[in-house]
């Protein structure tokens, strides 16, 4: 039983190896001096159309952006739950269908509530 999972473990190893190597290659090239790298103070400053930034940038931002992000995440998670359901749709039969609709109904209530409260208006 355990051997079936060995493929998945191999897959994870390859993915991790690929990801870390992508990150480490530029660092290695720079350390070996193959790729030129001359960091300077001006280079690390933010780019704002060729000028220094003025005024504070860590400021109190509009709360609207935060609402949008919350709504987006809540709806994204539902999609994650729909995948396993969709794969096993035939074997679950009508019972599965009903449970999913209950699940989506609860989410729809939350979404409509946010909509009514005006979280989506952008003024």
């Amino acid at each position, binding site marked *: 039983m355990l051997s079936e999972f060995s493929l998945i473990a191999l897959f994870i190893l390859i993915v991790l190896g690929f990801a870390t190597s992508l990150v480490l290659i530029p660092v290695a090239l720079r350390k070996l*001096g*193959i*790729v*030129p*790298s*001359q960091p*300077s103070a*001006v*280079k690390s*400053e933010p*780019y704002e*159309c*060729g*000028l220094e930034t*003025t*005024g*504070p940038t860590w400021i109190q931002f509009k709360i609207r952006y935060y609402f949008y992000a919350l709504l987006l995440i809540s709806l994204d998670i539902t999609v994650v739950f729909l995948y396993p359901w969709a794969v096993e749709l035939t074997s679950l039969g009508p019972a599965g269908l009903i449970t999913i609709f209950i699940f989506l109904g609860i989410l729809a209530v939350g979404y409509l509530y946010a909509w009514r409260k005006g979280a989506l208006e952008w003024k």
Partner: protein
Amino acid sequence: MEIGSGINSMDLDLHEGHVIEDLKNSAASALPEPSRWLDEEIERNIITTTVDKLLNWGRKTSLWTETSFTACCTFEFISTSSSRFDIARFGMEVLRSSPRHADLMITAGTLTWKMAPQIKRVYEQMAEPKWVIAMGACGISGGIFADSYAVVPGYNRILPVDVYIPGCPPRPEALLAGIELLRKKIEKRSIAKGN
């Protein structure tokens, strides 16, 4: 205009005025072109290794241009990058407006002293390896406006320039010839020189 935390636009103007005056006083003579190693044929003991060849091939065939265009040459550059003269044959049709993604700065147009600090700052914020093409007579020597009180007589006062392209504006063919010169120059780069 009030900018908040006590600054108003007049303070900004004064600060920027000082930056321009300092740059104007310090940029009295032309910067040396970074191409003196081009003619060092004599001590050719360092053969360009395959790594050099690979890196130089990769860099010269995908030069991304920084859109720091100022004046009339802009439209001649756009003509060159449009479908008729097609700069895409050189892998250069990508125009980057942020210096972070660009590795070639084509200075298309007249440079005034008020614009000089910004162009210098954008150049310094570009990642190595980077090159500069001074396009047009204004880029080389201030061109038709050389004796004006507000024009920098040539980009090499503030930037190390690699290739100069004469013309006012230079024809697209001249621009492509300049780019061909730059590509030859990139082929000669080698890690041993450490640049």
